[in-house]
């Protein structure tokens, strides 16, 4: 850590108060990333319980109600605790450095938006110790399962979701204000790195839909405690209404988890292909189109509730339309690699795996978009396989790629490349062994969220569980690599990677506590 002091530039404070009261974007970025990693391990532990129970048919380890609590908590913690905070952490660390800003626009709020998160998740996790048990109604918390038939701990769940939502909204406001107001002179919008662009659009999505989620859980709260009947059929409400409100939030939410991943991959592939990103403008427009379309496709999650045929057709075609801008992106990544002088360091391996495996998840998404086919796939393991392919080798791989890519900039040392590659290959093999057989299980008719299953599903579940344990265990390598890298290693240069472009690579490694207190030389800002 740099100990250079002068009258104007202070290093970090000492001790725990540095982390409690910090308004430094790099400190807060690190807090977010460590918190997200802790939640990743916690949610992963729940996933291990699920896979252990499903290792063979019959009820072995846990009772069905606890199994449901595990699926619910796994989903909630991975979505709201692991993936979203990880991207916010990356945004905090990298966006100010990428646009030549000294810090985030609202540093005090930045501190607040992080520090309410541990309370939200402590409250959510504490429900596991309560007499009623944790929420057991699935991460989508459909009413009336989550209202009339919910365990009494549901109120803690509701408040936890309120707090997470507030944290996300504050984070999003901060990012928009930073990107729109804090760019260095010469950093025009169309010169911003794609990671900044994707985050700007993601932040708008967050602002639009997190309040709707807050509204949905508030209605639940009123139904449970104050005698209203928003979702209660006996009182004139409608449970299907809940699904509409939830998925109006839920579909943009899945893009909130993938758009920043697009940005990360668009930063890494040009670096290691040693070429400029192919089709920068089209990438920006494609991202914006995906964000727009995400608002008009929500009902494809609920084709089976009984919709007029015109509605089903609309949502089917609108959903399939998303494949067009997504296809543009995949094409651009492949075109960037085409005839590039590629090298395959760990971040690049994760990025290439992202492109291949995310595209596979996209294809199964197209299959699910076909309304008549969806009636077969609905609520089966095919859906589980689909969204895990886009979220694990999609979003999570991109976060890992980002971590390896920027670790030398954060710590000042190169990570252990051999261990990094080992981590990649074990994760890559593990994730495919884990999730690929689930496609077959789903097509054969195995339902989601069940602790026991018919005998014909035994073999594929056995394979899937083996893959799950392999994938889960190999994440400890990542923890080890990161700690080892913080402790020392080969000194990193300022540019770190031979082909790296952009303002964040013009500052020293490790990045000083304060960067760009004076705006960077406009000559350093290149066209994309």
């Amino acid at each position, binding site marked *: 850590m740099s100990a250079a002091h002068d009258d104007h530039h202070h290093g970090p404070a000492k001790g725990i108060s540095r982390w409690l009261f910090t308004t430094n974007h790099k400190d807060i970025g690190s807090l977010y990333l460590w918190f997200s990693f802790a939640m990743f391990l916690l949610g992963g532990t729940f996933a291990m319980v699920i896979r252990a129970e499903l290792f063979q048919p019959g009820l072995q380890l846990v009772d069905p109600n606890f199994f449901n609590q595990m699926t619910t908590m796994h989903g909630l913690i991975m979505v709201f605790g692991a993936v979203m905070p990880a991207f916010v952490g990356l945004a905090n660390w990298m966006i100010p450095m990428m646009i030549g800003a000294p810090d985030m626009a609202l540093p005090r709020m930045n501190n607040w938006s992080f520090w309410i998160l541990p309370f939200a998740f402590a409250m959510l996790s504490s429900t596991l110790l309560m007499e009623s048990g944790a929420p057991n109604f699935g991460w989508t918390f459909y009413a009336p399962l989550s209202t009339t038939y919910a365990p009494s701990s549901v109120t803690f769940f509701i408040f936890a979701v309120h707090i997470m939502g507030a944290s996300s909204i504050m984070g999003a406001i901060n990012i928009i*204000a930073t990107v*729109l107001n804090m760019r260095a002179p010469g950093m025009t919008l169309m010169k911003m790195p794609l990671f900044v662009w994707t985050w700007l659009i993601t932040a708008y999505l967050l602002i639009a839909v997190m*309040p709707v989620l807050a509204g949905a859980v508030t209605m639940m709260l009123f139904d449970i405690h104050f*005698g209203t009947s928003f979702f209660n059929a*006996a*009182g*004139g409400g409608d449970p299907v*209404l809940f699904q509409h409100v939830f998925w109006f939030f839920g579909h943009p939410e899945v893009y909130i988890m993938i758009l920043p991943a697009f940005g990360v991959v668009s930063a890494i592939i040009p670096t290691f292909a040693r070429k400029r990103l192919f089709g920068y403008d089209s990438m920006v427009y494609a991202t914006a189109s995906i964000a727009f379309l995400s608002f008009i496709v929500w009902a494809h999650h609920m084709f089976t509730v009984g*919709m007029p045929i015109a509605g089903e057709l609309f949502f089917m075609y609108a959903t399939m339309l998303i494949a067009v801008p997504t296809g543009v992106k995949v094409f651009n990544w492949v075109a960037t690699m085409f005839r590039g002088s590629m090298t395959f360091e760990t971040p690049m391996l994760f990025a290439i795996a992202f492109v291949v495996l995310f595209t596979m998840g996209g294809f199964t998404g197209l299959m699910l978009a076909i309304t008549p086919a969806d009636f077969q796939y609905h609520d089966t393991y095919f859906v589980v396989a689909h969204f895990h392919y886009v979220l694990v080798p999609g979003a999570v791989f991109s976060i890992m790629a980002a971590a390896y890519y920027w670790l030398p900039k954060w710590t000042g040392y190169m990570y252990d490349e051999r261990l990094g590659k080992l981590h990649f290959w074990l994760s890559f093999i593990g994730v495919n062994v884990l999730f690929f057989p689930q496609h077959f299980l789903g097509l054969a008719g195995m339902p989601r969220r069940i602790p026991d299953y018919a005998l014909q599903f035994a073999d594929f579940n056995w394979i899937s569980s083996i893959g799950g344990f392999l994938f889960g265990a190999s994440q400890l390598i990542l923890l080890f690599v990161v700690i080892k890298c913080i402790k020392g290693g080969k000194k990193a240069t300022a540019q770190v990677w031979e082909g790296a472009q952009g303002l964040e690579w013009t500052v020293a490694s490790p990045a000083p506590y304060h960067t760009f207190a004076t705006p960077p030389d406009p000559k350093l800002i290149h066209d994309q």
Partner: protein
Amino acid sequence: MKQAKQNSTKRLVTRLLFTVVGMFGFGFAMVPLYDVICDITGLNGKTGEQVVATQPNENAPLSDRQITVQFLSQNAAGMDWKFSANEAQVKVKPGEVKVVSYHAANPNSYAMIGQAIPSVAPNEAAQYLKKLECFCFQEQPLEAGETVDMGIRFFIDESIPEHITKLTLSYSLFDITKSSSSATKVTQR
């Protein structure tokens, strides 16, 4: 320069906060919006409110179309009343007013309050089924062991499309004994 930047940040943050509040409101606005859309499209087979103004024209010649209306009953979870339709089905001409009834019995040794919620299949037909009177418009209290016949007076709107020849009216009966005292008014369906 710095001051200008801070002011524009303030303006931007204010706008964004208004968006947040607006979207929170939009979440709640989806509730009436959904009801309106359901009324227009018959989504979920929701039938409309009680009709008073649109009494069928008594003198108009009835068409010779016949539409079969079937009656179903089911008990929601935790509701143990005996609940059944007295007629399985009736044939009606569009515009003709019919009266049918359901039977309910409380087998328990304590008083309870029930509430029936209707639904029509196919969804498309829901908006053409007009109810002049229905037991589903109010709560139904029953003393211990009491039985009751509950009537519906309805007609089928003459504008019902040709291809609909059969429709099903289904009632789910809910136990609202607990919530009825606190809920001031059960929304009428």
